[in-house]
């Protein structure tokens, strides 16, 4: 008979090795899967993981994808550290894209230097509002944050779709569900020539550092960690649980909103129905892969961005369906949770016959 027993002293080292182990297991699994559908596993993994880093254009594209992933993941890391199960980064991202884009369209004729900051701010505030509603519902009515944030993801998506079919549709756009192209005054400047990499990635890296700074250096971050690790202790110490909850949720909402407007005012340049290929959801995996540590999230976001890129390349070069990316993400999370489980627990095989 197999029993599960908690380990008395889980290895501290393994907590950091676990993500690597999960990645290796995912790759092995992927290799087997590719052989099963008749593709060379070596070539597939090469396209999936190496090719995205092979030339400067691809690296630039990798940064484009890494930005929103990282922004969302840093916010989520703080939320999860505080035991606030915010699954709503996707909705907050879309709200940011919608709110920010509405502002950008207001400036569509403008050349003001304030146009871009105000547009970004509009995106940030929209993301915060979208995070605030479920937070309020949880703190006031004790509603389940996981459920409400997921619901708000769909509400945000359909609001956005409604907006591009209605009020924000480009009047000269031949009826396509897209907004007008933004003015250059509201577009994020690119960093390199001939690449779509824009300064959003710098925002994201900055967010990672700020998140790390808050968590490890400030009293606020300490309170967040205590609140998440041991709520009775936080109450005993006299920390304001509600204020901490509000802080992490609004912080996450702000970053996700920035990620959203960073997409429409960045590589896309207009509001379209598919702003995000599920960045807000993938960011959950990124946050866990980064051990809920903002600096860890930087590395994890880079990996996830490579996977996104690799998925595109695999489709182009080898005809592997792009759904393989989602599957890889799912398998990765599965292995990560499994590794964590076996770090904290062990199986013991007991022989019942000894009785």
């Amino acid at each position, binding site marked *: 008979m197999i029993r599960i027993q908690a380990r008395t002293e889980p290895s501290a080292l393994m907590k950091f090795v676990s993500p690597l182990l999960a990645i290796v297991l995912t790759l092995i699994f992927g290799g087997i899967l590719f052989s099963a559908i008749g593709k060379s596993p070596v070539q597939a993994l090469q396209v999936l993981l190496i090719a995205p880093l092979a030339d400067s254009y691809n690296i630039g594209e990798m940064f484009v994808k890494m930005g929103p992933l990282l922004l969302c993941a840093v916010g989520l890391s703080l939320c999860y550290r505080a035991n606030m199960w915010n699954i709503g980064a996707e909705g907050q991202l879309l709200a940011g894209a919608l709110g920010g884009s509405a502002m950008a369209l207001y400036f569509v004729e403008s050349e003001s230097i304030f146009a871009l900051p105000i547009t970004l701010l509009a995106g940030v505030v929209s993301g915060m509002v979208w995070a605030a509603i479920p937070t309020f519902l949880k703190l006031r009515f004790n509603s389940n944050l996981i459920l409400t944030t997921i619901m708000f993801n769909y509400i945000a998506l359909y609001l956005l779709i409604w907006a591009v079919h209605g009020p924000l549709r480009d009047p000269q756009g031949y009826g396509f569900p897209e907004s007008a192209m933004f003015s250059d005054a509201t577009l994020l400047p690119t960093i390199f020539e001939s690449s779509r990499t824009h300064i959003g990635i710098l925002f994201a890296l900055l967010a990672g550092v700020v998140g790390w700074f808050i968590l490890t250096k400030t009293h*606020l971050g300490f309170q967040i960690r*205590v609140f998440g690790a*041991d709520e009775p202790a936080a109450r*005993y110490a*006299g920390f304001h649980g509600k204020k901490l909850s509000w802080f992490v949720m609004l912080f996450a909402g702000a970053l996700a909103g920035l990620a959203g407007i960073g997409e429409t005012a960045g590589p896309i340049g207009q509001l379209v129905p598919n702003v995000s290929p599920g960045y807000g959801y993938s960011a959950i995996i990124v946050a866990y892969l980064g051990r809920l540590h903002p600096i860890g999230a930087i590395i994890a976001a880079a990996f996830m961005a490579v996977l996104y890129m690799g998925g595109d390349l695999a489709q182009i070069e080898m005809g592997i369906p792009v759904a393989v990316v989602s599957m890889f993400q799912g398998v990765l999370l599965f292995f990560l949770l499994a590794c964590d489980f076996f770090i904290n627990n062990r199986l013991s095989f007991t022989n019942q016959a*000894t*009785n």
Partner: protein
Amino acid sequence: MKKQHLVSRLELVKLTKQYPGCLANDRISMTLMPGEIHALLGENGAGKSTLVKTIYGVVSPDKGDILWDGKEVVIKSPSIARDLGIGMVFQHFSLFETLTISQNIELCLSKTQLHEIGDLAAKITELSQAYGLNVDPTRYVHTLSIGERQRVEIMRCLVQSVKLLILDEPTSVLTPQEVAGLFDVLRTLSKEGCSILFISHKLHEVTEICHKATILRGGKVVDTCVPNEETPASIAKMMVGDLADQEAGYVKREGTTTVFHVDDLSLPSKQPFGTVLKNIQFELKAGEILGVAGVAGNGQDELMAVISGEDERNVKNHLHLKGEPIGHLHAGERRRLGMAYVPEERLGRGAVPDMSLSENALLTHSDGFIKSGLVDWQGIKDYTKSLISKYKVKCHGEFSEAKSLSGGNLQKFIMGREIGQNPNVLICAHPTWGVDVGAALAIHQALLELRDKGAAILLISEDIDELFLLADRMSAVCDGYLSPVVRTEHTNIDQIGQWMAGTFINTHQPQEAQA
């Protein structure tokens, strides 16, 4: 002396367990006969916990053998220990809060055992009555006080008809009457042939009930004795080596100015099985310790939560600090006004288990270590080191996680942290529960020192001896009522014991008298 040529129930041969930086058990040998009640004595960190965990299969020894009924066994896990017939009641309980008592007990039974028992709830009720444990199988664990939870743990072992029962400080949360009841249970079990390994710090209990005692110090067996041939003082000496005797009474003080008072406080319970506070009224004076006796679950937890502000309901006009109402303030604001607390639960409330001692020092002591929102980690580290050395907290260092400390050492740390804030008012629950003689002495000294510096102290404890030793004035709680307050020298254990049983309620609250 019983020297029958029986096979021993349990024999340990040179058990050794090395932890990084600490030899927890050093070639420990001991023998337990069937039906023997054997005391395991020693200070915190002497290796008692490691030894019993080894017997219970939680810890695997590096060297040495365990013989069970004369046969060598390897106890790799608690389930193997349970299959052998070893039951254990831990110091930190391991119950699922969201399950009922019955479900909790069911969880640790195998299918065959469950089948043999049949109706578990009925069995629990039956044993509960037989042993006077007062355990209702349908109640949820989260509604139970610590004392009640311990009874569930004992019940859990009784249900499995054990051959060796290990009790880690079983009496620390029971009233004198309940202790007597428990001892009846233990004596009955002993007569039925069940061996009992009994860890306690209350030496008079050990001399009362135990047949033999093994004394550990620094991981080694330093002595064995027959407790009823010894006195508590002589055993204490064996435990701590040669430390000052703690029998000497302390000087009583009389405070003058009222620092804190609770005014006609009545509060319904938040939980279905909690205690309703009724007309609580008392005052704390500067330079004085008020002791509150009472059995667990009579309103102590509720009272403490209201005073600390962890219970966030507004009781503005019922709590006053230096004449100002504070009942509407948030827990953090009350702390900033100079209130400090030592809670009953050390791990999980008084300290965050997975955080280092430095971080746990910062938990409530942030004064002077926060500059414009930033934590002065170096300052905290130095402060933590000073706490560790001042209160002789046994640990690897300020980076040790709180959960790695033994109960008594963690308590010394928490005490030191709260006292280190120089509070005006210290609310302190069960300060020496599970703490060894030497550490208890240190904690007592620290409390008295704080009192003499002019702090007002509320001491909630279930240890009457300790209350009489420390408190300048005494009171008792029962069923959410607080008894009158008297000066300690004007009362005696009998009167307080009766108050703990609620005899004062009739005279004070005739309309709500309870049988």
